[in-house]
């Protein structure tokens, strides 16, 4: 007896009770749909976080000056001014796994052009900033090494700042005033969007770090607040992290028992942590939805048990004319499998639409991956077999004489 014939009989049996079959299937449809939709929300979040991290550069390292104790009170990371220009230069010169490095000196100021003004976070970096942050200049150009050496008054604007100060104008080549000092706008960075924490990354302006130190800061020359480093590769950044640590310990003359006065933070670690978090979220959402799938499976089992009882006589007839117990088992298994497979397919379509709806109406990023589709469909199939087996076995174990006599 071939498989096609079994499927045909199963199909017919389900067709006889369309309402019942549809309701039973609904359990699986909701289950699979919920799994697909929930996992798509989780994976969408995962994807978004990963995109943001890789847009920052996952082979990126931050070197921060360390903790400082003042009268027994810890001042927190970055409080000490232990990181110097020379450290940064040494990192560049002595560590081959480092591709780019730039000191960062932060400041902030009111900047003015004509009758427009804007308060902006100013980052002082060197000319390698676009390479490190993987951030292209959209208009004009970034400042060069000579500007950094001389501490020129050049400024590169983030997209948001450019739009605020120069509505409908080309900012490149214009002169703006930062704390009453004239700066030449040399370029505008391309839009980068929100950061992971929801900050507008384009609301910024970049100037040579030497300019911040010499012209924008007050009387004291501020130490660099951090160094941005990129490894030559993602794998290389791990090595670079260790090498930078060794180099800085040596340069800062830290004894083997003393702790670091700086900290090297690897973006790959940050990425791994947030990936872990979003994976947990995805699993949580998925498993809650999976419960409804199991409930759907119990619905199948329930209906199949009713069906076996109702069709006891039919089973007896089939056995009398020569159906082996195995065929009977296969026939009922095929019915439950068909319920769960069709429910699974419809559930995938519905789950996909819900996921689209979520991203459309709520603006959440969602991602229906082929893996989640495969897994939920496979899960639905497994449920069909698992919950269909007991009723099918019950049918196959019937005694033909008893079954024929059943009223």
């Amino acid at each position, binding site marked *: *007896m*071939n498989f096609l*014939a079994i499927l045909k009989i199963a199909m*017919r049996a389900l067709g*006889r009770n369309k309402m019942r079959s549809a309701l039973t299937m609904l359990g699986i449809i909701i289950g699979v749909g919920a799994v697909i939709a929930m996992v798509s929300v989780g994976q969408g979040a995962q994807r978004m976080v990963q995109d943001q991290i890789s847009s920052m550069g996952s082979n990126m390292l931050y070197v921060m000056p360390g903790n400082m104790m003042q009268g027994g009170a810890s001042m927190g990371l970055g409080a000490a001014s232990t990181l110097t220009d020379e450290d940064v230069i040494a990192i560049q010169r002595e560590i081959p796994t480092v591709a780019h490095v730039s000191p960062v000196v932060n400041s902030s100021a009111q900047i003015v052009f004509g009758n427009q003004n804007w308060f902006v976070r100013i980052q002082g970096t060197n000319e390698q900033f676009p390479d490190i942050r993987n951030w292209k200049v959209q208009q004009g150009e970034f400042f060069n090494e000579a500007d950094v050496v001389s501490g020129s008054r050049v400024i590169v604007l983030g997209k948001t700042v450019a739009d605020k100060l120069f509505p409908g104008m080309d900012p490149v080549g214009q002169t703006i005033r930062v704390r009453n000092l004239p700066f030449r706008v040399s370029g505008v960075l391309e839009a980068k969007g929100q950061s992971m924490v929801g900050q507008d990354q384009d609301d910024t302006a970049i100037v040579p770090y030497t300019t911040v130190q010499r012209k924008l800061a007050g009387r004291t020359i501020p130490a660099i607040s951090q160094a941005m480093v990129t490894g030559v590769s993602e794998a290389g950044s791990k090595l670079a992290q260790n090498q930078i640590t060794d180099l800085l310990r040596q340069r800062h003359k830290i004894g083997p028992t003393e702790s670091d006065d700086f900290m090297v933070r690897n973006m790959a670690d940050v990425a791994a942590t947030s990936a872990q978090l979003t994976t947990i979220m995805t699993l949580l959402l998925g498993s809650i939805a999976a419960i409804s799938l199991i409930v759907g499976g119990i619905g199948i089992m329930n209906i199949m048990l009713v069906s076996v009882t109702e069709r006891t*006589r*039919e089973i*007896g*007839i*089939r*056995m*009398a*004319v*020569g*159906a*082996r*117990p*195995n*065929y009977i088992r296969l026939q009922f298994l095929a019915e439950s499998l068909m319920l769960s497979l069709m429910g699974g397919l419809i559930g995938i379509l519905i789950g996909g639409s819900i996921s689209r709806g979520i991203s459309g109406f709520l603006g959440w990023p969602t991602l229906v991956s082929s893996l989640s589709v495969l897994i939920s469909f496979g899960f639905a199939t497994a449920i069909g077999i698992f919950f269909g087996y007991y009723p099918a076995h019950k049918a196959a174990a019937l005694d*033909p*004489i008893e079954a*024929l006599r059943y009223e």
Partner: protein
Amino acid sequence: MIDPVHIPESAPDAVIRLERIHKIYKMGEVEVHALHGASLRVNRGEFVAIMGPSGSGKSTMMNIIGCLDRPTKGQYLLDGQDVSKLNKAQLADIRNQRVGFVFQSFNLVPRTSAIENVELPLLYAGVGSAERLRRAREALAIVGLADRGKNMPNQLSGGQQQRVAIARSLVNDPSIVLADEPTGALDTRTSIEVMEILQRLNRERNLTIILVTHEPDIAQYATRVIHFRDGRIRRDEPVANRKDAAQALRELPPAEEDDE
């Protein structure tokens, strides 16, 4: 009554050979002895009627002959093959290939067309769909329902349903057809019509038929009547004045077109 010891070992054409068949049912603590060493031989082409009151063991005998059940003790040779020790799946195969069933309550699969009901044994025999259809049509034509293949059981009269069941019992070209009270749910005319078909099949196709009935006049259409009582065969005799169903139909007053 035939003593099994005297059955010639070289029985030329014995389709059914039952030797000292015992069947004991356990109902909780109590053992019910349904068959007490019944022995029976049926040759090819015989039309045997089995009679007896309820509880006489005739149904148990029927189930064993039909390979729906196994004897507790004793040997059963169907077409020369020992089927008394087979497992469930093997018994299913034997039923599929060697036995045709006709029941009192027709036992057609509901909401399944007549032709598909007839095809059922072929389906389980693994016959291809074109061949299935051909043989099912042929069987329906034999019982005079060639034009009712598409009808569902509930669209057919009782007599027609029973004829579909007979077609189904024939379709696998079985060694024996077991008819368990085939006329029990039918009126006189339809009963005789069904007997006419069975007699015709017995005569024209040399089909071996075992008929269980408690109506003495229905038993008169057979060639041999066996009486059961208390799990034993009490009487086994040829039918002296065998009735011809075709003749009986002609003698019936012209009918008020009851089922067609």
